[in-house]
């Protein structure tokens, strides 16, 4: 291992958060370009399945994490539990904040069709979202945190897939529209379209 690789390994061990390439470079007093071969070396060294640790690129930086092979033992050794899974309400709220940030609570409620206050509170408490100023009406706005990216294994927000991929196909779309139109016409049929006769 080169000395530079040794230093970077130590820095990643010590840093509580993922470290961006530029920050690693300035700490090591080298140019970011000089760090590329070192990061490649470490990436090979800590490739998945080789060791107990894996080098990961998350939340805009580099970090070391454990390989899942150690999870049962880690659970026995450490009292600290892993991040619990998200409830459907929490996951939906997080998805809306993730894609639309900054977004206000009423906006989340409008999209979900139900109030999302306790889901929002839980996500705040778990540090997955945070406040990000206020809307023009004074409602608190929310955005996701670097911890969100880290825990979900994302390098950056733009790694979230295009949500359009979950939209219905053109056929499904047409069918849905037909069904809605029929329902709409049935409702409109009740309203008087013509002048009704007045009974005496």
């Amino acid at each position, binding site marked *: 291992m080169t000395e530079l690789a040794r230093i970077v390994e130590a820095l990643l061990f010590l840093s509580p958060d993922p470290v961006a390439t530029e920050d690693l470079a300035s700490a090591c007093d080298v140019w970011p370009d000089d760090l590329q071969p070192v990061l490649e070396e470490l990436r090979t060294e800590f490739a998945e399945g080789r060791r107990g640790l894996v080098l990961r690129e998350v939340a805009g930086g580099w970090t070391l994490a*454990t390989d899942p092979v150690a999870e049962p033992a880690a659970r026995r050794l450490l009292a600290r539990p892993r991040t619990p899974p998200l409830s459907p309400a929490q996951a939906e709220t997080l998805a809306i904040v993730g894609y639309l940030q900054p977004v206000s609570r009423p906006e989340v409620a409008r999209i979900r069709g139900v109030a999302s206050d306790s889901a929002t509170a839980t996500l705040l408490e778990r540090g997955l979202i945070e406040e990000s100023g206020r809307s023009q009406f004074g409602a608190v706005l929310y955005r996701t945190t670097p911890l969100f990216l880290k825990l979900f294994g994302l390098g950056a927000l733009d790694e*979230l897939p295009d949500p359009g991929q*979950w939209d219905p196909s053109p056929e499904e779309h047409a069918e849905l529209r037909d069904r809605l139109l029929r329902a709409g016409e049935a409702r409109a049929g009740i309203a008087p379209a013509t002048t009704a006769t*007045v009974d005496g």
Partner: protein
Amino acid sequence: MSAVADLQLDLEVFSGPFDLLLTLVLREEVDLLEVELADVVLAYLDHLEARGELDLEAATEFLVLIAALLELKSRLMLPRADDDLLDLEPAEAAEELLARMIEARRYRSAADHLRGLLAAEEGVRYRSAPAPPWLRRGGMEELPEGVYSPDRLGAALGGLLRHPPRVDVTHLGQVRVSVAERLSVLRSLLRRGATTFDEAVRGADRVTVCITLFALLEMYKQGEATWEQAEPFGEIAIAPAATPEAAAPAGAAT
């Protein structure tokens, strides 16, 4: 805000005076989607009964405000808050509803995706340990001076000195009609004989429709008119309570 300001509410999401509810809704501090507006109307009717008299001005004000809230709520439930959705054709309504369904479904799928990502991270742990002692010492001397701008604090303080703007509801609908006005319209129609509710509100906007209905209620209560509706959503027929004079042929031919 006389009689309306007196109206005290005790709802699931809010208890306090009606005008405060309005303020909080406009400031997005109470989620209108959670407010049962029907309960507000019931509370108002109780309130009226307790007062034992009808203040036409206050009644108009309440109707305008509750109509505005209803409109706002219906807008909130449709996708684009700024669009004028007042007079939607069935086809347009279907499009709006469709857009809303697709949007909700999109984020439900995105939520499933996120839960999948989190599940895939099962067993990945990060280190969390305090810095070693040699790293904790010192630091102060190497700090960059003036990394933050004091103006940021002044600006933050200025923001905190701001009082909320007085709540302006004019954009929700101006009081253009009053119960008294609609009473006189109904009375003049009824002078020509029986009529229908549709006739009384032909071409009118939603607020006018509400207030006309209220005026009609008042006439019924006073024994000035009777009304009848054969089936739900059907025509409302209105007739003068007193023996009608022979309908004058001079009326407008429809």
